[in-house]
């Protein structure tokens, strides 16, 4: 099997062989040089496997190790939620100081410049949200980021009216925060809480090779016109 499409990129099936650690021979060289396919690979690797009812413990153990951030004690949760919300027009944001060690969830960076993971705090557990997942008013969401290169990082949101709001960092005067490369997902020390306006919420992580500010970047994101030297990853949620 060749595994390459007419345009030279990997077929979805070839991508699966690569993810399994057994790339088809004809695709290995392409993967070494194609940013698009390595990004696809990283995005595919981000897919979380749900528990399959009826299967026994080995599956559940794999699920937890692979994708879901869970911990039995609140002190070990990926983030600690502050009491009291800072109400905002679209979303209530909660700045949360953290004292925690990063958890190893077994995910590796395979080439994507930036990956955003979003988790919902449900008390004892913090399940990871997927694109299109439903959230509710009052839900508290935390973030994990992995980035191949160091740079300036920001997480922003776009509500159903396409109005931007800042998620992270909250205390830098609207400027992106300088961050080191992180080959494994690391939690951000701030979180947001959903307000009661229904509709689509898009959460966007942006990493650039130079400093930038919220207002300017929000405009570029809304216009789908990312500046050169920036990477982006986003997740869309439906709030009801």
């Amino acid at each position, binding site marked *: *099997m060749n595994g390459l*499409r007419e345009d030279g990129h990997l077929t979805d099936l070839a991508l699966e062989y690569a993810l399994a650690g057994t790339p088809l021979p004809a695709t290995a060289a392409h993967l070494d040089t194609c940013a698009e396919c390595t990004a696809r*690979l990283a995005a595919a690797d981000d897919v979380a496997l749900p528990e*399959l009812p009826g299967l026994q413990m*080995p599956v559940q153990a794999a699920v937890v190790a692979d994708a879901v951030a869970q911990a039995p004690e609140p002190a070990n949760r990926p983030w600690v939620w502050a009491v009291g919300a800072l109400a905002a027009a679209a979303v209530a944001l909660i700045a949360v100081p953290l004292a925690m060690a990063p958890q190893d969830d077994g995910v590796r960076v395979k080439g994507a410049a930036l990956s955003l993971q979003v988790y919902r705090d449900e008390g004892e557990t913090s399940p990871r949200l997927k694109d299109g997942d439903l959230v509710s008013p009052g839900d508290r969401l935390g973030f994990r980021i992995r980035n191949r290169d160091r740079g300036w990082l920001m997480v922003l949101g776009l509500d159903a009216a396409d109005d931007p709001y800042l998620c992270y960092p909250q205390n830098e005067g609207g400027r992106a925060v300088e961050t080191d490369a992180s080959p494994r997902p690391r939690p951000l020390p701030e979180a947001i809480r959903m307000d009661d306006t229904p509709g689509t919420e898009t959460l966007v992580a942006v990493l650039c090779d130079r400093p930038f500010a919220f207002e300017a970047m929000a405009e570029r994101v809304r216009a789908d016109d990312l500046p050169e030297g920036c990477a982006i990853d986003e997740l869309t949620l439906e709030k009801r």
Partner: protein
Amino acid sequence: MTTAAPTLDLNVLYREHGRLVLRRIRRFYRADQAPDILQEVFARAVEKADTYRGDASPIAWLYGLTTHHCLARLRDEKRRRELLDEVGEVPWTSPVSPSTTESKVFLAELWRTVDPELAQIGVYYYLDGMSQADIGELLGVTGRTVSNRLQQLSDLARDAAGGSP
């Protein structure tokens, strides 16, 4: 390619390849629909275990099984829909370009009206962008058979589009 155990262990299969199945399902269904279909596919895998070659990687087998199941399920839905009208692109796929009239006709309507094997070939070719040789290898038929079937599909698409060549 990896070497699989000669028999299917559902736990192992799910643990090692469940995400493959999930990703393939997401090519056809929304994220909120995918977990239920994931269960269906693995139930189907148990039923079809005799079609799995024990000395081969289960990747291609599961990929084909999932594609077949999703197409059959979509075909059975009462509501008419285009093949991808509620899904769009998922982050780990990239559009196969360019979009031809044939591919548009196939994805819009034709996939539902042709026999399941032909629909599967059409999906691999028009949606996944696989080569005829790769399709043949995946389905266990010759490249010539795939070529003939694609010609048949192309003729049907032209007819559906109004007969223009």
